[in-house]
Each structure stands twice: as structure tokens, then as C-alpha cells.
């Protein structure tokens, strides 16, 4: 424990501290600064500002109702159908009803320019699971256009940018009121205590806890873990989306990178090692164009039942469209496969389901408020908008819509909240916890443990789950946690990424526990959550969502009924869970 009076930390006072600089974080800054330019805003980015996280990596696009022939009600219905009616309907409605305004703002204020139709108006393309072609995009690099332009807005607005500074913990004053947060400057190895009237948590999810995973390095559930430690409620934590076509590239870090959804839309086949189009046995009608959850489960089943390739994958083949056509329509994807010695334009490429997006997260209201006054959560860290499964194209919509809302809320409430002084004991505890792996003189490096966690989650809490495997995961996580407490990292505190990995691992482990616990509790199959021991969707019992929070001794669990505040459950029988 660091003695309280010995703390050598930097101290910053600010009105609004925003943690994370993906779509949600930067939209939040844009809105807060535009609402009240006199506010002092501080931006924390675990990596490079505007270039960390996953909004940047968005290929597909942005679902939004623009065409008079489309309607908010239809987008809403698609979102609930996709989410298998587990969604918080107020959040889902907020998503679809704010999206047109936000796209308008991105185009006319932020400087984004999305692809146009021949007549010069915004082009909208088809995406899986939607009753109307409503996905706005910029080629297949939509994320770069949105994040590049948003990042450039920061040069106009000039918030205080703390680049390479990771947030550690929310801290409170003697009255238990939110006072701000602790952070670690990754570059210098120095700690920082930030007093803030409002803290916005927008760090992104933790799908990196799986052996095959799509997200960027930074995404280790820091926000969710931090909020959990602070006592906030988490919902739908069992709902982890697997994208069906992650690239398999051996030991390369490229493994898990997404080959885009559009390939299946354009007519790509999925084949097992026998050359069979196995989707005919899972969804004969929609075949490869079925939804992400169904296709992922089918591929996973093929692989697990021994019909996968030697390296544990299946094959995607679009070469029947002809080399020129594939090169013209999917230049980025062709380049990505050629980089590893395969060639999407000329033959099959090995793929596997890849952990992609976490639907679960912190319980929020449509203004991004939580049960802690002054603590807002936006984007993937929050749960409820997508229910049991997210539609492609609703992700970047979520981060920008709720980021903007968080900014509006923050600007509205900041002045009314005092700047409070955190309890120094909490600060010391947070810093001691972070310092521990660096100060331990002997012990293993964190890398092998990270690999074990990823294997464990993949095997026991992945695309298909059952009670035995989940119990094994729960027990194994206890063991991993004990070993994490012995991890030691060498080198100086400055720019020490082994140290950072140890801190990442602690957060990933916290989120992993929440996922496993929630998955054990939901004894049915719905959306992304599939239990082979309870393979049916059970609407009689399970139109409820699992809420977990930190209890005195383990988790406090609550099952809450879904509120059908805007839409009833359709009466038609649903074939797929």
C-alpha cells in the first residue's frame, strides 16, 4: 500500500472528464463543448486520441432512416427483432429516432461525406436483418471517415487531451459522491488524479477476452470493470456477439480480423472441409445470408464436430464471381487475404467465428445516466440497446447517438455539480493495485495468462455453451485470478506495455466473470447466447434480463422483466432463437 501522504501524482481539475476517444467519446466532447464552450473538458485516451478502439475499424456502415419510404417504426422493429425482444425499448427507440439527426450533423457540421447515389443524394445499402436498405457508408472504410473528421473537430474545440492515459478507477469523496477518477499515464508511468464534476465512461467492450477476436488492442473492458468496481449495475452480460467470418491467420495477430458481412450478401459460399455448403442444414432458406448468430453457431458446430479445416476453421469462397468482380467490389478484403498468402478473389479462405461486440454493459437511461450521480456511460460500455444481438450498422449508430446524448447531459448537469475531493485512501488503493505487477520482484509475465483466459473463454463460454463448460470456466477463472495476483513485469514504468497488459488482464478477467455468471443464469437460448443444454428460446420465462452488481460476497443477482413500453412481442412463431 502506498502511504497516503507519499502519493506522488499529477492532479487535474476539470468540469467533464471523458474516458475513451472512439465514436462515443469524441461525439460527447463535440456536444458538450458546443452546448457550453466555457466548460473545461478533459479527454482520456488509453492509446492515440481518435485512433484507438473500434469505431475506427467500422467497415460496413451506419443504419439510419433517411428515405421517406422507410420509417423509424420499421428500424425500431428490425432492432427489436434482431435483439430477440430483450432490448430496453426506450434505448432502442432513442437509437433509431436520434440517428437521422446525428447523421445530419456528421454531414453538415462535422464534415463527413458519405457515399452518394447517382443523383447526388446519400446512398443507403442493404445490410442483414433489415426490412429496408438504410445503411449509410463511405466505401468499406466508414469508420475512418467518421473518426478522422471527429478527431479533426478536436483541433477546433481544443479539449485537454490526455493521450496514452488509461483510466483506473472512479473515486468518491467522504460523502460517497463521485469526485472523479484515477489514471495512469502510459507514456511516463506517472499517476494522475482527476477531479471532475461529471465523468463519462466510453471505453468500449471486452471481446478481446476470446482466443479469436476482432477488436483493437485497447478494448479490454476497462470501463465496464471500473463501473463494476464502483458498484454499478450490469445487464445482459451473457450477450457476446460473434461475427461469422473472422480471418484465420495462424499465430498472426491478424487472426480474428473481420472479413466483412458484404461477402455473404454478395453470394459467398461457406464450406466445410468436405466442400459441403453446410448452411443448408442450419437455415436452408437464407443459407449464408442468415443472421450473424445463426451463421456463427453453424460454423462453430461444423468445426467442433470435426468437419472443420486442420487449423480449426471453415472456408469462405466467393471466387465464383470471378477475379475481376471480387477485386472491384472487395479490394480491402482481397488485400487482407493476400497479405497472409491466401487470395479471396481466386479461391476459398479459412475463417472462423470471431468475438466481435458485447451487447451487455452498464444499465443506463436514454440520457446516459447511471445510478451514480455525475457518472454517465455511452457506447459499447452500456447495455440494453441491442438486447440479445446487434444488427450490423447499429454499432456506430449507437456510439455516436449516445455519445452525443452523453455530451448534452454532461453539459446540462456539470454546473450544478460541485467539484469534490476524492478520499485519498481510495486513491491510494487504486494506485497500489495498479502498481503491484510492476513492484513484484518475482513472478510470471502476464502474456501466458492472457492466452489461457482467451482459450478458456473460447472453449467454455463461446458460441455454444452448456452448464458443465460454464462451471469449468467459473472454477478456472478462480485459478487464473490467483495467478494474476503473482504476475510481475520487468522494465521501467515508462511506455511499458507488459505492465499495461497485466492491468488489461485484470479488467478482462472481471468482465469474463460477469459473462460466465450471466451465461449460467440464463437457462435458455436467445440471440447470441446459445445453451446446448437449453437450446430453445423460452419466452414464457425468459423475457427477463439478468442484472449483476458487486455484492458484499460475490454478485448480487436480479432478474428483471423486459418492459414492453413501446412495442408488444409479435405473435408469430420464431424459428430461430
Amino acid at each position, binding site marked *: 500500500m502506498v502511504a497516503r501522504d507519499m502519493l506522488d501524482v499529477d492532479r487535474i481539475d476539470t468540469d467533464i472528464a471523458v474516458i475513451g476517444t472512439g465514436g462515443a467519446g469524441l461525439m460527447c466532447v463535440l456536444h458538450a463543448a458546443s452546448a457550453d464552450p466555457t466548460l473545461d473538458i478533459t479527454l482520456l485516451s488509453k*492509446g*492515440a486520441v481518435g*485512433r*484507438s*478502439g*473500434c469505431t*475506427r*475499424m467500422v467497415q460496413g456502415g451506419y443504419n439510419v432512416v433517411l428515405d421517406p419510404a422507410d420509417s423509424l417504426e420499421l428500424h425500431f422493429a428490425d432492432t427489436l427483432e434482431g435483439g430477440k425482444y430483450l432490448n430496453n425499448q426506450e434505448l432502442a427507440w432513442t437509437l433509431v429516432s436520434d440517428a437521422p439527426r446525428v447523421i*445530419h450533423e456528421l*454531414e*453538415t*457540421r*462535422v*464534415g463527413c*461525406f458519405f*457515399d*452518394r*447515389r*447517382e*443523383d*447526388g*443524394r*446519400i446512398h443507403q445499402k442493404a445490410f442483414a436483418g433489415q426490412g429496408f436498405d438504410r445503411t449509410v457508408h*463511405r*466505401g468499406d*472504410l466508414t*469508420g*475512418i*471517415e467518421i473518426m*478522422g*473528421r471527429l*478527431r*479533426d*473537430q478536436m*483541433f477546433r474545440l481544443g479539449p485537454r487531451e490526455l493521450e496514452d492515459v488509461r483510466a483506473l478507477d472512479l473515486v468518491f469523496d467522504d460523502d460517497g459522491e463521485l469526485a472523479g477518477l484515477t489514471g495512469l499515464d502510459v*507514456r511516463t508511468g506517472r499517476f494522475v488524479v482527476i477531479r471532475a464534476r461529471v465523468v463519462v465512461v466510453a471505453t468500449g467492450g471486452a471481446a478481446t477476452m476470446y482466443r479469436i477476436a476482432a477488436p*483493437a*488492442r485497447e478494448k479490454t473492458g476497462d470501463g465496464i470493470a471500473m463501473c463494476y468496481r464502483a458498484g454499478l449495475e450490469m445487464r445482459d452480460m451473457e450477450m457476446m456477439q460473434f461475427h461469422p467470418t473472422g480471418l484465420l*491467420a*495462424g*499465430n*498472426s*495477430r*491478424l487472426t480474428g*480480423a473481420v472479413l466483412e458481412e458484404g461477402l455473404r450478401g454478395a453470394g459467398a459460399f461457406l464450406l466445410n472441409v468436405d466442400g459441403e455448403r453446410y448452411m443448408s442444414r442450419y437455415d436452408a432458406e437464407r443459407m449464408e445470408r442468415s443472421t450473424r448468430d445463426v451463421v456463427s453457431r453453424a460454423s462453430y458446430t461444423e468445426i467442433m464436430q470435426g468437419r472443420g479445416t486442420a487449423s480449426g476453421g471453415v472456408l469462405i469462397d466467393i471466387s465464383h464471381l470471378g477475379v475481376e468482380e471480387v477485386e472491384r467490389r472487395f479490394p480491402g478484403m482481397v488485400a*487482407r487475404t493476400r*497479405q*497472409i*498468402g491466401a487470395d479471396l478473389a481466386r479461391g476459398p479462405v479459412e475463417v472462423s467465428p470471431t468475438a466481435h461486440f458485447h451487447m451487455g454493459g452498464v444499465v443506463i437511461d436514454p440520457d446516459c445516466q447511471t445510478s451514480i450521480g455525475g457518472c454517465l456511460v455511452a457506447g459499447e460500455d452500456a447495455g440494453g440497446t441491442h438486447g440479445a444481438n446487434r444488427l450490423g450498422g447499429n454499432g456506430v449508430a449507437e456510439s455516436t447517438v449516445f455519445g452525443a446524448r452523453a455530451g448534452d447531459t454532461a453539459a446540462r448537469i456539470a454546473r450544478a455539480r460541485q467539484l469534490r475531493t476524492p478520499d485519498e485512501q481510495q486513491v491510494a488503493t487504486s494506485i497500489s493495485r495498479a502498481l503491484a505487477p510492476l513492484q513484484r520482484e518475482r513472478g510470471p*509475465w502476464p*502474456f501466458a495468462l492472457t492466452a489461457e483466459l482467451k482459450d478458456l473463454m473460447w472453449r467454455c463460454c463461446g458460441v455454444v455453451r452448456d452448464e458443465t463448460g460454464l462451471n469449468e470456466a467459473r472454477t478456472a477463472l478462480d485459478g487464473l485470478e490467483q495467478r494474476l495476483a503473482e504476475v510481475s*513485469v*520487468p*522494465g*521501467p514504468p*515508462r*511506455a*511499458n*506495455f*507488459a505492465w499495461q497488459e497485466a492491468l488489461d488482464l485484470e479488467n478482462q478477467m472481471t468482465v469474463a466473470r460477469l459473462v460466465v455468471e450471466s451465461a449460467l443464469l440464463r437457462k435458455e437460448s436467445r440471440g447470441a447466447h446459445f445453451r446446448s443444454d437449453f437450446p430453445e428460446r423460452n419466452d414464457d420465462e425468459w423475457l427477463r434480463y439478468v442484472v449483476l452488481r458487486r455484492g458484499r460476497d460475490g454478485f448480487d443477482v436480479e432478474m428483471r422483466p423486459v418492459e414492453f413500453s413501446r412495442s408488444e412481442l409479435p405473435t408469430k412463431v420464431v424459428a430461430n432463437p
Partner: protein
Amino acid sequence: MTTLRISVHRSEPDRLETFEVERDDPMMVLDLLLAIQRTHDASVGFRFSCRVAMCGTCTLRMDGRTVLACQTPVPTDTDEIRLDPVAGLPVVRDLIVDTAPFWQEWATVMPYLVPNEELTEPAVVRPDSPERQIIDPALDCIGCGACYSSCGIANSRRDFLGPAALNRAMVLIADSRDAAADERMAAIDGAMGVDGCHYMYGCTSVCPKGLDPAGAIRKLRSWRLHGRP
């Protein structure tokens, strides 16, 4: 399986340190660094995020040439590779640099759209319009700084705006939605701007997104002389 000898720039103290890494397939330069970190020296400093050439943070020099570590396969014609930080930016540690000077130059050209008064609805612009023909191939800059590192002027003279910032300025000046073209034309004028370029095309030859910053600079010079479109 062959063994690769990887010489990595280490900053404390300043030296080259050589590691032996087993060749794998497929293997990117980023995978080399991860292998070194995981099996040899956990403290080796390098950066990456997305590993699919979208974040632009893993830029470094491999045998002198500036590349993105994540999208550069380990060469098959040699077993000896040298890795250095990008040129022209202060080293934080090992292969990690402080990109602040790059972004300061970028900020100088007012890199954000200044919407003109008529822009109340998404602009109606045909995809085959002259303006989009200029802009579209010059978008998708990921701010990786490869052009800056490979530019003999930018990496030696701190006052030159550099290829990426000038490319961004060109994109905005060509955009009919923007109202600040005159200010930007002024910002890119002179020896610290377009006149600083000596057309060595280092920028264009290394851009991992296939952009042509040198071409953008030519356009800006031509617009200065003949008026912008």
C-alpha cells in the same frame, strides 16, 4: 523452420539489440515484435492498436523504409531485419515516438470542415462530379505519419507542414461545402507550405493507403497560380 535475426532500436541506452525469432507463416512485422515481447523481453516498447491498417499507430522503419508493422509481411528473401522508429519525430522509448509535431503541423491547416452557410442539409453532390474526382482518392488518410517519416524535408526541418497536412488541406479546399478555402490557401503558402516540397515522392511511395500526397501538393501549387476550382 528458419531463425530470423531481428535488430531492434532500443533507446535506454541508445543501441541496436538483436533477437532471434522463429519464422512463422503467415507472419507480419507486428508479429515479430509481439514474439520478441512475449518470449524474449517483455519491456520492448512498440505501439499498435487495430492491426488491420486502420488506426495508423504501428508505423516504423523496416530496413530504412517506413511501413505499417501490421500489414507488412516479414520478407522472405532475407533472415536479417532491422527495425527503427519513424524518422523526424522524438523517440519516447524504443520504437515509440511522440507524434505531437506531426499533429501540430496537421492542425495548422485547419483540418476540420468549416461549413458554409448554405449547408443545412447533406449536400447534393454527384459521385462523378469534378470535386469528388479530386477528393475521393485523397481521403482515407489514417494519420500514420509514414509520409512524414519518409519525407526528407519534413523529417529534417521542423517548420515544413509535411505531406499529410497538405493533403488534408487540399481535400478541404476542393470541398464545395467548406467556407475556409482562402484561409487554408494562405496557410499552405510559402516555404513552410507547398514551396517546401522538393517532389522526391517519398510520401507517395510509402503511403500504406495508396494516397498521393505529392500529387495533392502539385494541385495546391497549381491552384495558387491559376486559382482554385
